[in-house]
């Protein structure tokens, strides 16, 4: 099997590539892709890389909102299934058994059909709405960043830390005196106060725009090759630090412990991975692509300019203009264009039918699995713990928060992370509904350019990054929880 794969990567493949006139390269990243995407930050991407970025963002958008919703729903259902109330627990089981035994793709089709069979927009529906569902999708009122949002956000981040400090002081007061210190209330009031004050004083931060522009200029001035160098250096440094730490864990007072095959293998693997990244950094970074404006540039330079642009963009937001940082925006149904198409306008937020179907389906589907995990985690907390807490007179809410949650969390976390990853991967079924996520965009690009292998590599890099970041978070919390028990 491994052989088969290596074979695909290996010589035989390149021979066949040559035969079928397929070149292996990254030039297409800069070429206009020649197709449009139905939703996302850019409907007419002007380069392959931008099209993939739009797809990737669509995936992330549906994945993250799905993860949040599925976690909430799954927790409710998992707890409901444990309820002593007969009918509540039966309803929860019914949900779980129905949802998880039907293929996800079928469920996506189901929601798609259901949404598409909603009535279409007509003359009567023209007007401003709060919330509207039609066969064009789901439109809802939404809150958007507006003038001075970014300076205000900066103030809010400061406010968050201030609130944490206040809450801590109040908790300490409570523990010292036994009187209720209302730490939560005080923290909330602090952040509320900061938010209100910040709402009006945010123009004062306009001087920071010079700072952001300065950083942008600084980055823009760096030679392109150093981007590759930086990435390569980072990879090597991370690998080196990892190996050093790994060796440290093996160190005993009597000197370095004996290393098993496995340990050596791991270190070699870390080293080789770093070298591979170095190779990719230079190989891909040096590749020349033509930018939309017609000029040529190396991938590294494009990346560098992109980073600099982020800071310029940020600088532009610190104008010092007064105004409310957040704006409520309501969807409108309007007659557009000369043809008299009745459509949703650009205000509010619109989930297209494809987006909504994918989102609803993955949320409901994953929630069923999460519910089972939550239930298992709670059941795994020994029965004696319940009895001991009851005997001590803890209330049910205290018992859940102080005893069950910390113990169940450790059991729940790893499989939960797995489910998050599954959800993210499952959004790729959106391809079947022409939802423009990364696999759909990639396979369209494949058909247009014939560059299948590079696109598969992009997919891998995307999902790998996603899963590594997720498991990074999971491991972080796991270690924190594990420390508590020792």
């Amino acid at each position: 099997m491994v052989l088969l794969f290596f074979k695909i990567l290996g010589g035989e493949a390149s021979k066949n590539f040559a035969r079928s006139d397929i070149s292996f390269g990254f030039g297409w990243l800069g070429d206009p892709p020649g197709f449009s995407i139905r939703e996302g930050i850019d409907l007419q991407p002007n380069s392959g890389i931008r099209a993939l970025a739009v797809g990737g963002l669509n995936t992330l958008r549906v994945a993250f909102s799905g993860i949040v919703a599925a976690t909430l729903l799954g927790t409710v259902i998992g707890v409901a299934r444990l309820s002593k109330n007969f009918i509540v627990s039966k309803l929860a089981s019914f949900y779980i058994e129905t949802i998880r035994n039907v293929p996800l793709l079928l469920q996506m089709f189901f929601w798609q059909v259901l949404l598409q069979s909603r009535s279409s927009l007509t003359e009567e529906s023209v007007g401003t709405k709060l919330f509207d569902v039609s066969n064009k999708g789901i439109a809802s009122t939404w809150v958007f960043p507006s003038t001075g949002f970014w300076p205000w956000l900066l103030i809010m981040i400061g406010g968050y830390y201030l609130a944490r400090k206040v809450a801590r002081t109040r908790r300490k007061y409570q523990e010292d005196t036994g009187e209720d210190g209302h730490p939560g209330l005080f923290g909330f009031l602090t952040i509320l106060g900061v938010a209100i004050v910040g709402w009006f004083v945010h123009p004062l931060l306009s001087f920071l725009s010079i700072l952001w522009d300065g950083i942008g200029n600084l980055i823009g001035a760096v030679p392109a090759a150093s981007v590759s160098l930086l990435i390569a250096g980072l990879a090597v440094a991370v690998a080196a630090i990892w190996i050093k730490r790994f060796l440290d864990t093996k160190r005993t007072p009597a000197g370095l412990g004996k290393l098993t095959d496995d340990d050596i293998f791991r270190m070699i693997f870390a080293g080789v991975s770093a070298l591979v990244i170095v190779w990719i950094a230079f190989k891909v970074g040096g590749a020349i692509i033509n930018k939309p404006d017609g000029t040529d540039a190396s991938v590294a330079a494009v990346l560098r300019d992109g980073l600099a642009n982020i800071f310029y963009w940020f600088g532009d937001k610190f104008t010092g203009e007064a105004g409310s940082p957040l704006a409520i925006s309501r969807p409108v149904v309007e007659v557009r264009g000369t043809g008299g198409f009745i459509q949703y306008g650009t205000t509010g937020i619109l989930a297209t039918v494809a987006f909504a179907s994918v989102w609803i389906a993955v949320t409901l589907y994953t929630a069923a699995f999460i519910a089972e995990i939550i239930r298992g985690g709670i059941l795994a907390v020994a029965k004696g713990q319940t009895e001991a807490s009851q005997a001590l007179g803890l209330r049910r809410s205290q018992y859940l928060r102080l005893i069950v949650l910390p113990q169940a969390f450790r059991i729940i976390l790893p499989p939960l992370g797995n489910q998050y990853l599954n959800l993210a991967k499952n959004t790729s079924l959106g391809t079947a509904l022409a939802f423009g996520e990364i696999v759909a965009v990639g396979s369209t690009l494949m058909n247009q350019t014939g560059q299948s292998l590079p696109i598969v590599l992009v997919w891998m890099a995307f999902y790998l990054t996603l899963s590594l970041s997720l498991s990074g978070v999971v491991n972080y919390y796991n270690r924190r929880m594990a420390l508590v028990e020792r």
Partner: protein
Amino acid sequence: MSVANNKDVIICEGVKKWFGDFQALKGVNATVKEQEVVVVIGPSGSGKSTFIRCINRLEAHQEGTIIVDGIELTNDVRNIDKIRSEVGMVFQQFNLFPHLTILDNIALAPLWVRKQPRGEVEEEAMALLERVGIPEQADKFPGQLSGGQQQRVAIARALAMKPKIMLFDEPTSALDPEMIKEVLDVMKELARSGMTMIVVTHEMGFAREVADRVLFFDYGLVVEEGTPDHFFENPQHDRTKLFLSQIL
């Protein structure tokens, strides 16, 4: 020291309890007086644990009445809360909270249920650990302690709520012989200090030495009761005689 004239703190009348179709208690009548130490013995499965777990309502009885310190046990949550903070319990399997340090295990309930200030709570907790003889273990986790030490922590944890009554469900059954003594010593000290105690145990030596009264359980009923001397020397009932002949 005689307790005969003290007032009744626990009164059970006709207590019946079923698990599904299985009847575990068939009408238990018993009273416990203030400062009295009552030892409950009986064969396995006779309903001893079920009985004392009904007293702080870890199990709900279905028929009969239980009155603890003048409060009747019903479904009323307020009564249950009140009783649970006055009745401490020690389990066979210790049931310490594995994710909390020894000190936090003891401090948890006073902090959250009695809402006492932390400084005070920790002082008392340390004092309790002194009393059960393991102050040096305060910052360890339950998993790092021996069984006997864990059980003593469990006793300290229950005492931290300053209960009027302590329930012990076979506190030494999960322990190695050399650890049993250290736990029993703590319990004896507690009994001498005038605590009202109900103890389910198979430690007959403890029963003879400390108990004011012995209840013998079988078939979900109090089959026989009496002072330790009376009970061990001159049992009335055949079942009791048989049971004693097997264990003594």
